[in-house]
């Protein structure tokens, strides 16, 4: 189980870096907006799945908070794009994120009870770690619009909180 999560995360980390490392290309603002929005949507869907499948109070509370926070941040992101006249642009990183998320969702769907809770929470820890790392080292430094950069920075602080919350909740599952 742990190995498969690591494998997915390794693929994710690599896709974040390699997709833009070739030729020193930096993601553009429309691409950054798309990646950040997609990453948020993925966690919203994962949260909805957990709310439906879990019976653990702490896990459900965590999942509900993920749905709420990422929905709020994504709404602001969309509003900002509209204001700036930026159309989010699909790209290889967004595509590989979605692909990995679909695989993870299918994998989690086969689990129940504490096994589901543990796999979901472990994935939330790893996922937030990966996405936060990408925000910190690639997406925020690459964004050129000041308002987009500021929103991503605020998002990163919130998501770092999610990572700690996830680590705490994961540690409580036996």
């Amino acid at each position, binding site marked *: 189980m742990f190995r498969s999560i690591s494998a997915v995360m390794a693929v994710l980390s690599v896709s974040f870096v390699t997709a833009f490392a070739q030729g020193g290309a930096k993601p553009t603002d429309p691409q950054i907006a798309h990646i950040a929005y997609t990453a948020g949507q993925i966690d919203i869907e994962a949260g909805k799945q957990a709310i439906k499948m879990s019976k653990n109070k702490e896990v459900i509370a965590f999942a509900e*908070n993920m749905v*709420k*926070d990422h929905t*709020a*941040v994504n709404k*602001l992101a969309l509003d900002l794009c509209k204001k700036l006249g930026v159309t989010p642009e699909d790209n290889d990183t967004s595509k590989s994120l979605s692909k990995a998320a679909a695989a993870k969702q299918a994998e989690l769907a086969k689990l129940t009870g504490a096994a589901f809770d543990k796999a979901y929470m472990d994935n939330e820890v790893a996922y937030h770690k990966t996405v936060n790392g990408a925000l910190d080292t690639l997406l925020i430094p690459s964004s050129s619009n000041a308002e987009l950069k500021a929103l991503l920075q*605020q998002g990163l*602080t*919130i998501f*770092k*909180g*999610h990572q*700690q*919350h996830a680590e*705490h909740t994961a540690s409580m599952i036996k």
Partner: protein
Amino acid sequence: MFRNRIVLAALLLAGTLASSVSAVAPAKVYQIVIDRVAFEDAPTGIKVGDTIEWFNKDIVDHTSTAKNGAWDVTIPKQKKVRVVLTKAGVIDYYCRFHPNMTSQIVIKK
């Protein structure tokens, strides 16, 4: 006569109560703003009986959760929530949703 005495006693009692209340500093309300995923530093001089009002100016909901269990309230985004402080002490508190948000309130007797 008897009635007058009761009135007088009541007046005296009221006077005593009023003076004893005025001798104690009136309870205050202190506001702590939450902005950009951080608690503003608590003001100094907070005493038992005072009220803290957290004003969440952020884009997401937060909680104020005392580590010693003294209080645990959710402060929805763009809302204010009040807590009356009932015990003295140095209280560390955090946000349950974002545990990277931590702060401290010093409550004196």
